[in-house]
């Protein structure tokens, strides 16, 4: 079982590589109720009564974008400590109570926001919602829990250095974004984590974990009236306050070519090639989606996979993706291949990037890409959990409730000329960042 799951997990990762640039679904079919409460909390609700479960997702607009560089890791530490004790409950009480009802609570910080989730059976929704609300509003941030979590995060950062892909990704973001928050790990570094105090946590929490800075999305076996009661009972005292915007370090300007070689005793070279990409509100998002699907986002239908895996047999996984964030994200192509073939594979990836910038894609390619992108979205919303997460993120990125109706139109209006135009505009075969984690002696990179 353990081993067999790996393939699946990898597969889902691949799918999600391009799934997160495709936020498009038939919202009209979801029947979503949206409202903004008096305290400023945005609530999205979709009733699904076929199974007695309820999935809750809250987005709080708090992320590395809001933390000082010398305290990098602050938003992550706040998220990690939410369920480690509140004003009335110890850490162990929270996990005991939530797990006794077979429910789960999770909290994590990402590049743009913090997500807190609850998965609970209908019959236990009172208890689940009570704990969920409590950890969001009343975390205690006890010194003892802070010290424990600090050590766990530092240890886990050390542990992850075993993974070539972790080393490569960390170096890549640093080179692309420099001092901008996207250039560092959400976890921060051991040094910045060490500098975070309990006061920092309390201050960050009270500043950002407020209803007028949050989106609540609830999907499942719950009526509007039932949800109102829950919110009134458990979030009734949650008060809005004013917010001050923080100055964020600017993104680097001109792109230049940078090559970073990390030596490690491994059999495979892990390679990332890429540069800055686009933000989520860029109108070229749709043309970029189609273009990237053809280049390296479309799994076995993509050019990179066909060439490097199917024809050359040089990799198990090769892909490309954009991460359209609140601010500009990355474009990256990634691959693992035996040390000895690293040069060949890099050359081929660059060749494919040049090719899609030089000639129009074929009719067959563009029509397949469009039919996948438009035809696959109901499937990406096939569980209540996915719908809850989706609604929250659609709201965060301001895509609007009619987004799903418009999405197919946007995709279908993309022409071959558009694909060529965005490939030329957003792909750069000269000024890219190239990271390789490899046995450098064997890889002998020409770059």
């Amino acid at each position, binding site marked *: 079982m353990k081993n067999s799951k790996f393939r699946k997990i990898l597969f889902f990762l691949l799918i999600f590589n391009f799934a997160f640039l495709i936020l498009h679904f038939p919202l009209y079919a979801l029947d979503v109720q949206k409202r903004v409460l008096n305290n400023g909390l945005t609530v999205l609700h979709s009733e699904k009564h076929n199974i007695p479960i309820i999935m809750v997702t809250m987005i709080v607009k708090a992320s590395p974008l809001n933390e000082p560089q010398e305290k990098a890791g602050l938003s992550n530490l706040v998220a990690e400590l939410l369920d480690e004790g509140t004003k009335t409950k110890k850490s162990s009480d929270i996990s005991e109570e939530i797990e006794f009802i077979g429910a789960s609570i999770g909290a994590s910080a990402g590049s743009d926001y913090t997500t807190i989730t609850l998965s609970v059976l209908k019959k236990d929704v009172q208890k689940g919602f009570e704990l969920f609300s409590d950890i969001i509003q009343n975390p205690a941030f006890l010194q003892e829990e802070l010290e*424990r979590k600090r050590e766990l995060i530092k240890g886990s950062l050390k542990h992850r250095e075993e993974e070539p892909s972790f080393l490569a990704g960390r170096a890549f973001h640093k080179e692309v974004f420099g001092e901008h928050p996207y250039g560092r790990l959400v976890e921060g570094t051991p040094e910045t984590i060490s500098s975070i105090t309990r006061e920092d946590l309390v201050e960050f929490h009270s500043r950002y974990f407020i209803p007028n800075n949050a989106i609540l999305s609830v999907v499942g076996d719950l009526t509007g009236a039932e949800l109102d009661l829950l919110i009134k009972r458990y979030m009734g005292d949650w008060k809005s306050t004013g917010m001050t915007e923080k100055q964020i370090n600017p993104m680097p300007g001109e792109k230049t070519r940078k090559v970073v070689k990390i030596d490690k*005793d491994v059999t495979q070279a892990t390679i990332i090639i890429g540069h800055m990409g686009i933000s989520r509100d860029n109108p070229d998002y749709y043309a970029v989606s189609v273009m990237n699907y053809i280049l390296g986002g479309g799994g076995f239908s993509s050019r990179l996979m066909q060439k490097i895996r199917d024809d050359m047999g040089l990799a198990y996984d090769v892909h490309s993706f954009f991460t359209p964030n609140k601010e500009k994200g990355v474009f990256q192509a990634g691959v693992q291949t035996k040390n000895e073939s690293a040069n060949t594979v890099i050359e081929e990836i660059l060749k494919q990037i040049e090719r899609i910038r030089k000639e129009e894609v074929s009719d067959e390619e563009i029509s397949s890409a469009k039919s996948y992108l438009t035809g696959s979205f109901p*499937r990406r919303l096939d569980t209540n959990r996915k719908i809850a997460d989706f609604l929250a993120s659609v709201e965060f990125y301001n895509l609007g409730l009619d987004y799903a109706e418009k999405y197919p139109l946007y995709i279908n209006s993309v022409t071959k000329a558009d694909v060529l135009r965005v490939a030329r505009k957003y792909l750069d075969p000269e000024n890219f960042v190239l990271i390789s984690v490899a046995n450098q002696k064997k890889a002998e990179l020409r770059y």
Partner: protein
Amino acid sequence: MLLLTTMKKILSIIFFIILIPVSLYAEVKEYTLKNGLKVIVVEDHKAPLATFQIWYRVGSRNELAGKSGMSHLLEHMMFKGTPKYGSKAFSKIVQKNGGIDNAFTTKDYTMYYQSLASDRINLSIELEADRMNNLIMDPKEVIAERSVVMEERRMRYEDDPQTSLYEEVVATAFKSHPYHWPVIGWMSDLSSIERDDLYSHYRAYYSPDNAVIVVSGDIAADEIIKKIKALFENIPPVSGRKNVLSKEAEQQGEKRVALKKEAELPYIIAAYHTPSFPSEDSYALEVLGMILSGGKSSRLYKSLVYEKKLALYAYADYNGFNKDPYLFLFGATSSPGRDVKDLENALYGEIDRIKNELPLEKEVQKAKNQIEASFIMGLDSIYFQAEILGMFEMIGDWKMKEQYLEGIRKVMPDDVSRVAKKYLNEENRTIGILIPMKNSK
């Protein structure tokens, strides 16, 4: 719908004792075609989607020494085309129709699936029927795909110290049974697998009477079965499969294995031979696994990670869904600067504790609630609904799912301590330790 409403009322009355009566789960329909192909259908009309899965009863368990990894390589070759649909056409057609497809191989079985809009599910039936019988397997493609699998092996095993240790431990725990080798195969075996080996493997095991189809989603069972009959029933069953008779002899003393590899932190795995489901003891073993490792309130997390701070992560995992007896596994990553020996002893301390003192009634109930809730949450996904039936079918019969839940509900605290005493002992243990080495270059 009526049924569900009634059910919800009942649910609010019964509290912790029995979470969910049997009938919450959708009705399952079963058919067997003349050629022995079994078809299981679950209608779930919540969204216009469907999942098609075909399960073949073949995995690394059915391989011979020197040819490990054949079943998994064959799985890769299944995407390489038939005379009707060329190489890699399969995935492209599915994607063009807005669907996804993939496959995976385990020790006991190989499963292929597609998830599509329900009005296109016939595509799955056509494509799967075609490749069950008409695979080309071009020798050149076999050689190319062999290299792809070698890259896959490098990525998952060679360059991942913890997975490498897992492979060592399992190979040490099993000396005669084919569970000895990894599903992906040994590197040297991979290079020796020829086209003809794969083709005979395909012919012997990809027979309709060795397969099960599970379809779930927004479909009409009668229509689906008609279509499946039309396309699959003329595929003749083949004989010549050999039963796997190998049995691992009882272990008579602890085995230890050390792995020195470039890594950041020490890692320990403890593996104990245990029977698989539906053995009488399997239910209590499942509950035992949950008590030890089901979340942050579980014993291993609380003791090794939270209180003693010896480990960054720690888990216990009873692997009961296998054809033959497999392993109850423990694993823990050492915290930086701590001695892995202390971690090992602390792990044994927790095992001794549950052997010597009965777990609390409430702890057992929590574990049962977690298992039961995970089944109900799983109903959210049509893929999972199909998968769970397929998994039970691979070890016997999909109807064993009920037996499983019933068995879990009956577990008492003394059952948990009893199975811990019976299986988690030194004689039956294989220990693996990862010793991190510095980069020598």
